[in-house]
């Protein structure tokens, strides 16, 4: 799996759900997605759906550790661990 490509695709996806007036700098990999104001809180649901649809991750049994969705880096690490190839 090409994680760099996954990261870019994730960032492109985040741009489609971000707050419109979030300052357009490069999205920081380490910053909290909700805390930084990039997305509003319920947009996390769209990230969950994105991971399910694009990487086959099934959260229904295991649940989600909120820390896994906190930043771009943590999501990429989740994908690296859990993605169904």
């Amino acid at each position, binding site marked *: 799996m090409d994680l760099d490509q996954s990261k870019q695709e994730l960032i492109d996806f985040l*741009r*489609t759900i*971000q707050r*419109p*007036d979030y*300052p*357009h700098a490069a999205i920081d990999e380490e910053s909290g997605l*909700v805390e930084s104001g990039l997305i509003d*809180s*319920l*947009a*996390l*649901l*769209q990230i*969950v*759906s994105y991971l399910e649809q694009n990487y086959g991750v099934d*959260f*229904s049994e*295991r*649940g*989600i*550790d*909120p820390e896994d*969705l*906190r930043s771009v880096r943590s999501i990429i690490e989740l994908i690296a661990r859990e993605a169904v190839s």
Partner: protein
Amino acid sequence: MFADLKCGALTELESGRCWSSQDIYARIAARCAQLRALGLQRRDRLFILYGNNLAFFVDLLAAWNVGASVVPVDNRLTPFELENLARTVLPKIALTDATVPAALSDVLESLGVTLVGASGLASDQVPAPQASGLPCAVQLDDEALILFTSGTTGMPKGVVHTHRSLRARWLSLRHSLGIDCFRRTLCMLPTHFGHGLICNSLFPWLFGQDLIIAPSFNPYLLLRLGSIIDEQKITFLSSVPSMWGLSLKGSKPPQGRTLQRIHCGSAPLSAHLWRQIQQWSGIREVYNAYGITETGSWVAGTSLENFEPEDGLVGVPWGAVIKILNSAEPQSPFAAGAECAVGETGYVWINTPALMQGYYGRPELTEQVISGGWFVTGDMGLVDERGRFYLKGRERDEINKGGVKVYPADVDAVVERFDHASAVCTFAIADPAYGQNVAMAVVLNQRDDQTLRQLQAWLKDHLAEFKIPQRWYVVDELPQNSRGKVSRAAVQELCANLKPVDLVGLLRRGSLS
């Protein structure tokens, strides 16, 4: 209980702080003394600019013991909106803390409102309680709460509840629902609106049950809901449908079997989601709770022996009589033939001792909705042959964004004042996370990028973020009906076939240039 208040323990979920009833009584007494020393008197009004924490509940009861009425304020409002509220209500004191944006404090200070910090007394500063329970200083027909539901950008609409109407709500809920299942109640709903404050929090807490209070709509807590229920041994929680998206997807179900009941309200609950909540929680007692701020929130629900989740099913009244009438006109709700037949859809009217006193400073508006003690809700419904109440839709002009109501007129009022806007119509669009979101169609006399960016800045200055339209359509004109009135439904239909403004791209180009 009728005038006495006996509260349970309070736990703040995030910090883990816990105050016993005795702690709380002592803190209330101390805060009372402080507020009196600052000049607060009976019938004064007090703003509380924070919520969902221990201090909020102490300060609320302290203000009530002075005889003041309380306006819980959503601190996401813009200074423009807050100034509008403050000029309407003229609070004497506003309670603020570190979570409140400085701009809000500044606008209140400029209006001569006394600002007071939160009552963060350390444990060793809290005086020993003088007596058990609370001094009984409440007069039942005094104003207790003013909850602003709309009009923050124009003419504020504030629902006034007295101590009498609140107690009527709580006593009728206790009669209809019992109290045992509320032993350990979790509140994750905002304390500045009726559902979260009057019913999810104050009802169980002021009957001596323990309240566990959490920040509202926090996604990371929703992803841990099952663990929270187990760790805190939660027996009851209330919710709105949009909360469940995250919890059902990402939270392991609770394992500890402490849950006895869940309510879900403030937005339509589909049968599908209803069953999912029952399955996840492991309990059948998931009730669709119907409530309106004007009736003290929960006024009916599915407290039935046997029921299957159905779209629109609410159930039975709680401390109210519900009638379905064929008119929404207040003049003669009970004219001959006014009542709909069993199974026929009509306008939902409610009679309850928990009815609001009225809209603050708006007697003409109050008269439009209350007639002979009956309140017209703006909802459509029916009662079936088993006596079960169903909701069939809303006539009210509101957008339900995840349980929080956004009023198109509030948004229109702001856009209309933008220099380059000649007409606007705000309307609802479907949203995968919130259920509904806010969109607008606007006619502009200049359509360049710079003007659109100025409009975005105008909206940010005048509207709380959750009200700002997320999708814009710039149009040549707005469709009108035969009476020359803009039809929101027709605007929705028009925009369904149009391409919206690329807001993200627009603002990005602006920040780069």
